[in-house]
């Protein structure tokens, strides 16, 4: 479906300089021209001023009376309006009329010297406003690309039911599409609660530290900062901190679960702390946050073809029931992979450093895991693999714990996909296919 109703023309005219101000707001043109002229002078200050002839721009709309914005600034004019003495460069034109929406929202126009051009906007009161998290997703209505990206209003839709969906590279739209009722004269809303973008891949950052390791606090702080960055939501990247038993063999986090901490650092044959593994691969510069962030972001482009979702009831008691759902988006063979399910404590403030590196506040500290990670096999598209396990919450308060699950290939230790109970809405196969 296309709603490109823009109709603008431009024509060359003999060189002229028209400073008259046509239209109902003629007096306002003089200041606009003066500003343009002053800006031009200022831009040329200190060098030889370019010689050019100004252009003339006419902006119209249906219905008329919309405020005209040029390059993001309100000109003070209402459509139809003619702006004379316009610098012959690229300009962005937009109109604004209450309760009306233009489609497209704005027009970029390259003006040549002495050119006279017209931009005409069609305004609508019927349409659809779509927002998403993250922004920048292309909006599809009825399966057709509207050419708009979120957040945006798709105007000019006919009243009735429209199926809306979003596409964004490395993200999945959940549900796949949404039925929206558009009424005459109204703008329907589609929010992030209606159409959710779920990362196709959740990257797992595993960190190994020790309370006597001088640089471990920096690595830990980097992980907090990286996963808190714009675009690093809980379904984009999650991290889990294990403890090694050196330099201090009596690290309290290590001693809280020495067997499973040791099992993990021996799994990777960790030979230096701090160490950060991104999806099972050693991060070369664990103390450089940008490096870790880039490493994580670089893995989003690879779609493993399935999702991992975690539902955990930490308030149930000392034994936490956990449901892990593997949702294949296509046929995928996970033979040779295991499902690792672990519980971490979100934040631990010990008040005083337990070691000699000064760190007293810790994040995402590993506490327990499923003793024997179950082996996985082939998954068929649309047929989720649901696993129910339990974890020991220990002294972790229900509100301060998170359960993570990830699929790791045994042969090369690559983590294919991860998920956590911190994701707000699990994506089940049924929900994925849902069309509301």
């Amino acid at each position, binding site marked *: 479906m296309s709603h490109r109703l823009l109709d603008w023309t431009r024509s060359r005219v003999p060189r002229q300089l028209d400073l008259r101000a046509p239209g109902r707001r003629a007096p306002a043109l003089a200041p606009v021209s003066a500003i343009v002229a002053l800006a031009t002078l200022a831009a040329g200050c200190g060098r030889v001023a370019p010689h050019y002839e100004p252009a003339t721009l006419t902006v119209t709309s249906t219905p008329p009376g919309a405020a005209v914005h040029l390059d993001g600034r309100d000109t003070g004019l209402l459509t139809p309006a003619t702006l004379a003495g316009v610098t012959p460069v690229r300009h962005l034109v937009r109109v604004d009329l209450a309760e009306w929406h233009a489609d497209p929202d704005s027009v970029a126009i390259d003006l040549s010297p002495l050119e006279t051009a017209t931009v005409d906007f069609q305004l609508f009161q019927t349409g659809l406003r779509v927002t998403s998290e993250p922004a920048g997703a292309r909006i599809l209505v009825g399966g057709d690309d509207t050419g708009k990206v979120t957040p945006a209003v798709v105007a000019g839709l006919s009243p009735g039911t429209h199926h809306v969906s979003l596409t964004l590279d490395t993200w999945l739209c959940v549900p796949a599409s949404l039925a929206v009722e558009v009424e005459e004269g109204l703008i329907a809303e589609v929010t992030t609660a209606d159409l959710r973008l779920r990362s196709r891949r959740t990257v797992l950052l595993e960190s190994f530290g*020790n309370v*006597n*390791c*001088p*640089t*471990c606090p920096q690595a830990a702080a980097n992980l907090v900062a990286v996963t808190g960055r714009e675009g690093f939501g809980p379904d984009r990247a999650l991290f889990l901190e294990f403890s*090694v*038993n*050196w*330099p*201090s*063999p*009596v690290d309290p986090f290590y001693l809280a679960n020495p067997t499973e901490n040791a099992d993990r650092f021996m799994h990777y044959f*960790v*030979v*230096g*702390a*701090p*160490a950060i593994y991104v999806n099972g691969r050693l991060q070369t510069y664990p*103390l450089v946050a940008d490096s870790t962030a880039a490493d994580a972001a670089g893995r989003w482009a690879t779609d493993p073809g399935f999702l991992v979702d975690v539902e955990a009831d930490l308030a149930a008691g000392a034994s936490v029931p956990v449901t892990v759902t593997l949702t294949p988006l296509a046929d995928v063979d996970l033979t040779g992979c295991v499902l690792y399910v672990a519980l971490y404590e979100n934040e631990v403030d010990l008040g005083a450093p337990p*070691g*000699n590196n000064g760190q007293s506040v810790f994040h995402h500290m590993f506490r327990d895991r499923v003793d024997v990670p179950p082996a996985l096999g082939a998954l068929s598209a649309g047929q989720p693999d649901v696993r129910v396990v339990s974890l020991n919450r220990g002294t972790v308060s229900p509100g301060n714990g998170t359960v993570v699950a990830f699929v790791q290939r045994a042969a090369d230790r690559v983590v294919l996909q991860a998920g956590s109970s911190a994701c707000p809405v699990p994506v089940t196969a049924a929900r994925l296919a849902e069309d509301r």
Partner: protein
Amino acid sequence: MPRRRRMSIPAAVAAAATVTALLGAPPGALALTSFAWEIADRGAVTALDVTSTFHTEIINTGTVSDTYTVSLVADLPTTWLTTMCDVSLCYPPFITTLQYTVAPGDTLYIGVNLTPMLEMGAGTSTVTVASLVAPALDRTTVFTVLTAGPQVLVVGAGATGQAQPVVDAVTAGGRTCVLWDRQVAGRLAAAELGNFPAVIWDGADEPDVLDAIDRAALAAYVAGGGRLLAAGADLVGGLVDPSSPFHDPEAAGWFATVLGTAWVGPAAAATEVSGLPGDPIAAGLVLAIDGNGVNAAPDVLAAQGGVPCLAFAGGQTAGVRRQAADSRTLCLGFGCAGFDPAGDRELFLGAALDWLLGNVTATGVPAAGRRLSAAPNPFNPRTRISFETRSRTAGSLAVFDLRGRRVRTLFDGALGAGAIEIDWDGRDDNGRPLPGGTYVAHLALAGEPAAKLKLTLAQ
């Protein structure tokens, strides 16, 4: 006045020294290879499960890049752990060799971590820095950790190994003991000394030992109620004698204030000391001090606030004890390793530690429950050993020869309260008659320091 022997400076003392080497270089230029190894501390006394980190910096002070191999060798109780860190990573215990290329002027950080776990004692991590360009620059430093807990700390202030007989004697006497090699492990702070009920500072004749910092730490230790035995040939004279290369004008005041002692001069050919009559430590003892070659030039002392307790054969004062409100000290003008044979060393140190730790009063009367005597003594063929207990307890009474071997166990089990008498027939555990000579009765009662009594089996 003859000056005493002086020993060479150990390599470890020069750990921060810069060593240089000239290498082959293009004509008209000389490439200088050198590095400095700066070490803040080389030893610590800690509790179990506490990691001590020794911070060091290796600075390439030469004009060319060099590659340094840093290697770690551990000598630790089996449950202890030692590791290394650099400026960015800490390495697991199985990584004992690291290699770095360092540009001229750059600094390489190496942290050495040592954690005592499960068992008390002492451990060392020996770190060697080897230069790839100039192997002659290789340097080694030993990092030491002791655990708090033993009753006695022996600070070996003389040459390495010289104080080991002292440790052996204290241990043979039934006390827990640990050795701190001052030359290798560096200084101890007063707080570290304070982990031990008694400290034996043994040895002398080394530069920068018992310097102002050491003395301040010991003074604070004694002021805090610590019990100190300071012993060593030339220990006092080396610092007080104006002709000594190690003379320190402040030292005489320290000896007087802390140890109640003044220096008189060197003792000529002193091979024997005897306890002064009535002295709670050594009354009746005559002991050779010419063992292990440590007492070539003992000091003659004088009491200055303290009380003489030992004398050389000529009657000159060899030892001074001092008792203040909360502290006791004993200063000897000779080294304890010189007591010979080993049994006499054990006998004297046992008595000295008994007094230092308050088990024997200044008037020489054993504390209640600790009275240990034998009659007749000397004896042949039988003597009766007597002691008292305050309450029901458990304990043992054994006889040792002067080589420290247990020859007879007279009792090992529960004891009632009151006077106890046990006979010894001069035979060993197999019933064989023992040769005449000196033996030591060793009484150990639960919860109390051991008591010892010298027994003489007449021929």
